[in-house]
């Protein structure tokens, strides 16, 4: 699989603040790659360097195996932080300028406006748009040149729940067509719902990188409750292949690598004389992995 983006020891400081430190990323083609980190972790700074608007202090990056250039950026659809358009121009006029810059056909304007549901407002001035409409126009602009790669920085920022769902749906639709998507977000739920790969960064450091499955370690959590939690815990300790356990009140949460067999666990405990009054198996959430990873940093 071709590597779409590779960064090597990318660093950027603003005065004494080191926003990004020696960042090494590798984004495979066709991935929906999430850059996950709390606010101020260096996500936007990283994307700004990759898109040529901030100059790295050191390190380098390559798109499609070549150093960054304006010609390459025309093949990348980008939405960074907030939509930037001329407020007095209509959606159509703004996209016309983007077309001239990207050297793509103006016939693309109508289809992308239709794709983001803005065709009926094509001739309204940008300044009359709501936050969600502005965001959708920015996505339309990113899609203009039918790019191989989409770079989206907090694409659901400021949107209402319906807008968030629409944008996520749009991202998934685009990903289905084989496009590579680089998505920076601090919303774990968003990354978990749409991404195939993830890089976790904090204070400019890369803490973890890999497929979402790898980051989650394919772990499941088994929640159990019984009348006698101590007896339950003792029984679980003797269970073959039992993972790490922790107590939450009178509930015991056990980590299991791979797909746990609820029926087998239940039968085993019953044989040990323990009757469960609660048994729930769920996949380990990215939120838990994220908190574990960032807590170690």
């Amino acid at each position: 699989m071709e590597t779409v983006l590779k960064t090597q020891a990318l660093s950027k400081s603003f005065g004494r603040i080191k926003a990004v430190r020696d960042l090494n990323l590798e984004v495979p083609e066709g991935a929906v790659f999430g850059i996950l980190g709390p606010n101020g972790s260096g996500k936007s700074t990283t994307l700004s360097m990759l898109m040529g608007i901030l100059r790295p202090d050191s390190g380098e990056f390559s798109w499609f195996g070549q150093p960054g250039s304006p010609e390459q950026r025309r093949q990348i659809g980008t939405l960074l932080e907030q939509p930037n358009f001329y407020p007095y121009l209509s959606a159509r006029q703004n996209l016309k300028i983007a077309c001239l810059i990207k050297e793509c056909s103006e016939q693309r304007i109508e289809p992308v406006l239709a794709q983001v549901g803005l065709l009926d407002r094509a001739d309204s001035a940008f300044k009359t748009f709501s936050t969600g409409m502005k965001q959708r126009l920015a996505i339309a602009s990113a899609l203009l040149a039918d790019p191989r790669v989409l770079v989206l920085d907090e694409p659901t920022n400021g949107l209402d729940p319906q807008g968030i769902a629409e944008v996520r749906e749009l991202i998934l639709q685009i990903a289905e067509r084989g496009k590579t998507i680089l998505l920076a977000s601090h919303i774990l739920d968003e990354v978990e719902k749409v991404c195939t790969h993830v890089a976790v960064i904090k204070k400019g450091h890369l803490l973890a990188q890999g497929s979402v499955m790898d980051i989650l370690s394919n772990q499941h959590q088994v929640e159990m409750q019984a009348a006698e939690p101590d007896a339950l815990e003792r029984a679980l300790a003797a269970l073959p292949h039992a993972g790490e356990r922790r107590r939450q009140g009178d509930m015991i949460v056990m980590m299991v690598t791979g797909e746990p067999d609820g029926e087998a666990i239940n039968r085993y405990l019953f044989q040990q004389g323990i009757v469960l009054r609660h048994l729930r198996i769920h996949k380990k959430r990215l939120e838990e992995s994220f908190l574990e990873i960032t807590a170690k940093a």
Partner: protein
Amino acid sequence: MMRLLKIEWNKVYSYRAFRILVGIYLVSFIALPYTMEGIPFLRNWQQLFEFPIIWFSYYFGAEFLSLALAILVITLTTNEYSNRTFRQHVIDGMSRRELFAGKMLLMGAMALLLSVIFAINGYIAGTLNAFIPEPELTWTKAGYIPGFTMHTLGIMAFSFFVANLLRRSGLAIFAFLAWIFPIELIIRGVLVGVVKDGGMISSRLPIHVIYSSNVQTKDIFSDVAMLDINALIPNGLGWENLAWKAIWIAVFSGLSYWMILRRDL
């Protein structure tokens, strides 16, 4: 080149402030050689509005109007920063060199177009004002036409530099006006009073060079001028002034290019 001009044109032609400012400027600019005669203290100098001195008079009046062009350039440039559209253009695949070249082309095209209007309008006004037609005199002082082109480019290059430096329209317009009126005048005063050869240095300062009509106004309105104003006014701005204008245009354009190229957007 046409692509960059097309991009710039698409940005400005629907911009109301651009239309209003350019409209007011053009009306004043075209009316100028016909209306200056109406200024009471100029009424006695009929010669000023006949060939060939009209080229000088028109140039002299147009210098004041070019303040509107400076404000226009500052507004258009600082808008790119406040709307974050310069940033977006780079993201979309424009090089920083193209950001600079687009604005320079727009300014160059405006300066060229205005120079053509200057030449045609000056010719019409001079013909209408001619007391006795003297065709051999029509173009003798036409050196003020390229002079006007260089003046326009100079004032736009300076305002483009200030706009790129400060990035905020209010601040840039204030700094521009402050430099034109008190600051450069103070520097000139200090240079003349304190430094040896200060007079020579002070006459090379940018606004003095850009706003140089090469003629002392007091000479024109002296009694001697009544007798031989034609001899008092040179045929153009002179090579030295044009060369200094070119130097300042290069300096301000170069600095703007450097800022666009090197700074974070």
